[in-house]
């Protein structure tokens, strides 16, 4: 049980990272983590450090690329950007998540109506 939940979380985090990079363009790790927190209105409890495991995984799969650069405040940081393969993957993932959430929504709605009766 614990393992499958972890898998889902990992997968979720990866999609979030891809989506944020797709929308915002190249970002460093801290910015990505902050963006996730902001978008999810701090509803996702995320240790910022764990984002790096996700980043290295996506990099190894060739979906994002990382390059050292300089931030707005003139700090050295590693910036991540989408690759073509990453964009394709994101399309796939988006479709998958939409299907999944609609199915989940239908299932859960049906169950709650059953409770009322």
């Amino acid at each position, binding site marked *: 049980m614990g393992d499958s939940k972890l898998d889902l979380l990992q997968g979720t985090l990866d999609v979030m990272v891809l989506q944020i990079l797709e929308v915002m363009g190249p970002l460093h790790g801290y910015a990505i983590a902050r963006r996730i927190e902001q978008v999810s209105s701090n509803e996702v409890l995320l240790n910022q*450090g764990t984002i790096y495991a996700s980043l290295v995984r996506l990099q190894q799969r060739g979906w994002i690329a990382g390059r050292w650069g300089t931030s707005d405040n003139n700090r050295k940081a590693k910036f991540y950007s989408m690759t073509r393969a990453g964009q394709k993957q994101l399309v796939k993932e988006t479709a998958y998540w939409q299907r999944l959430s609609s199915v989940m929504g239908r299932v859960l709605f049906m169950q709650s109506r059953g409770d009322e009766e």
Partner: protein
Amino acid sequence: MSLSVREAFNRMRSFFRKHPLDQELDEEFASHLEIAVEENIARGLPAEEARRHALARFGGVQQAREKHRESRGLPLLDVLMQDLSFTFRTLRRDRGFTIVAVLILALGIGSNIAVFSVVNTILLRPLPFRDSQQLVRIVEKNPEAGESSKTYTADATQDFQQQNHSFQSVSGYFAFTGPDNFKLIGHDQPVPVTGILAAEGFFQTLAVEPSLGRLFKAEEFAHHAPPVVLLAYPFWKRQFDGDRNIVGRAIDLNNTSVTVIGVLPETFDFGSVFSAGAKVDLFTPYIMDDFRDDGNDLALVGRVKQGVTLAQAQREADQLFPQLYFEHHHPEYGKGYTGRLTELKEYVSGKLRRSLIVLWCAVGLILLIVCVNLSNLLLARAAARSKEFAMRTALGARRWRLVRQSLTESFVLAAAGAVVGLGLSYLVISYLAHQGSIALPLLSMVRVDGRALGWTVLIAVSAAVLFGLLPGLRMSDGNLQEVLKESGHGTSSGRNRDRIRSTLVVAEIALACVLLVGAGLLLRSFLRVLDVDLGFEASGAAAISIDYGDDRNPSKRAAIWQEFVSRSSMIPGVEAVGISDNLPMSRNRSWGIAAKGQQKVDARDFIPVYVYIVSPGYLTAMGMRLMEGRDIRWEDLYNNRSVVIINETVARKLWPGQNAIGRTAVAGGQDAEVIGVIADVRESSAEENAGAQMYLPSTKQFGPTGANLVVRSKLPSSALAAPVMRTLRQINPVQPATEFKQIQALVDHTTSPRRFFVLLVGTFAGLGILLASLGIYGVISYSVTRQTQEIGIRMALGATERRVQLGVIWKTLQLALIGIMVGIFASVVVARLIASLLFRTAPTDPFAFAGMVILLGAVALLAGYLPARRASKIHPLVALRTQ
């Protein structure tokens, strides 16, 4: 590149770039935190607070790093590397333990590899010929007359070759070749060499290709063809220094110029397949026309056609062989052979299957004992490390991780043991492969090959699991609190663990029992074999093959023989001298003998009989016992008198209950007067019955096949060799330097397989008892250490030294007795399984069992005595202070 391949590749890359990747990650973390702190300060937090906040949001740095490593690299391999480095560290710390464990394992695994290689070569691997499963050996169905009934005449062979439809080819070799039957004449003294006469197509049937030159051509098998010779590889290397230009050159064999036409490949060892232990130097054509009148002399080998089964070929042979005439020129000799087809492989090694399997089981037992012993050692270590493991469990290590850790340790030990064992077995095997004196077929071809390496891996892995799993489970199965609470040297603590260790020791003793009983039974059988009355006195007699030119003139031969005998008799220290063409337990040939009575002798009256053409004095020189009558005299030879000496078996069969002396027998186609009866002489080996034998004088009617001068003396044969050779060279200056062989060596050769097995099983039993005693010692000594305090208290309360000693010894004996009891039960079962390997020894032989009990009991006592002594020397005060 597909996704998973790309990821796997990247993960692998990351695994080997750990350090730079970690460094980059650290830089990334640092930059992350700096940016976060900066932002927090910008939001108005004080510097200290800004930093604390950033760290809190970041979470555990170490955890993030671990996660990063896990998702980028090969986490399983990482853990393995950690386990390995931890194992190496602990093993290096426990150097004594490591050395003992690796040595024990090396002995166990090494002996297994060695025996497997022997079994693999002799039993499992096909013969070293192409499609060797098609090769069959053809012998008579009831071979009761030695080599002569395993062979066929030239005419019968030729007829069978022409008439059969089952074989691609049938060929053979001359089966009555003695060692050193040729002399190679060069610049120095003539060199004695052994040559085999191979019939046409012999090498083609075996699919042997020459490594140099060519094989025999058809025309070289014709009468009066120019003589040619093929050299065996080792002889070519030894005698001609591997000279590649030897092909086409002429060499002098027996004063005949013979052309070398080729060299056979290194892989072809005639002796190891067809005549265990014999060395063969060269091959010459067997020219059928030269042997038409010589009776059965070809040993047949055939290669069945593709798709023809052995049963089909056998059916055809059953129809053809009874129709084959012995000799075309003498149809009156009749017809009617039988032929049993046996796969060559089965013919060569079938008889050894049981012995080899027993040997294999014996080393298997050794490996089991080794595993039990190792298990025990590891348990003792586990006991000492139980706190460490409990501590690690308390700190969150999972059980599986601990088991894996201890399995890693056993795998490392097993691997080290396998490597050392491989080295050991390599030494043993190269030693065995060069033991020409052991009459085991194919032994010279034993190698550590790929299959043996596979076997090594297999047994090393199973051994590691076997001896590592139990301690691993025990180790991780600690009840945390109890273990941590337990103080240094408890009194009643760890009882459970003691019980497991005691059980293991009992198992070890029982296994050693089985080995000891097996070895004991085989040893008893071997001693019984040595005790057999051979009918001659092997010790003190030695023989040398002699060379002379007699121009095929019997009286000239008689004169030469007499000169050899009388001159050799004059050598100081020589007691008796005689000549015979064949010696017991080497080659043999057989004719027929029948009693001549009133009626005409019928073919059915003949019994097959081993025949020896001898000089006067041979019986005495060999130490054979003349029961009645007289020996052959020189006059018998000069006057071509037809006389015969028979053995008791012949006398009993032809003239049951009567005196045979003075009767007339038909022997070798001649009427001959029986002048003597000798005690039966074991012809083939001590284990087989003597068979019928007759001894004839060398005369016009009875020609010898070669000649061996037998000398009896109290002097060692090494001291006698030189004067005998001098005497022989006085008579014949070109006498080759043939070996002066002790007759005992012939006897030893026939008992060598048994000696080989006894030696090996005995060694394993010794190893088993050593390991078992180590196990006993370990357990008892350990329990004494644990009970130091208890013993101290008891001694303080007045227990005597003696009493303490007896207590420990009694505990040892208890273990030993239970083990021996279990072992006896197992041994009775095992002994019945090996009953067919025993010779005049019952599987329940009381000596073997009693010997085992005494030996094991004594060893157990010794193993228990040492710790008992230590226990009794415990000083109460010291013991109580060692809290």
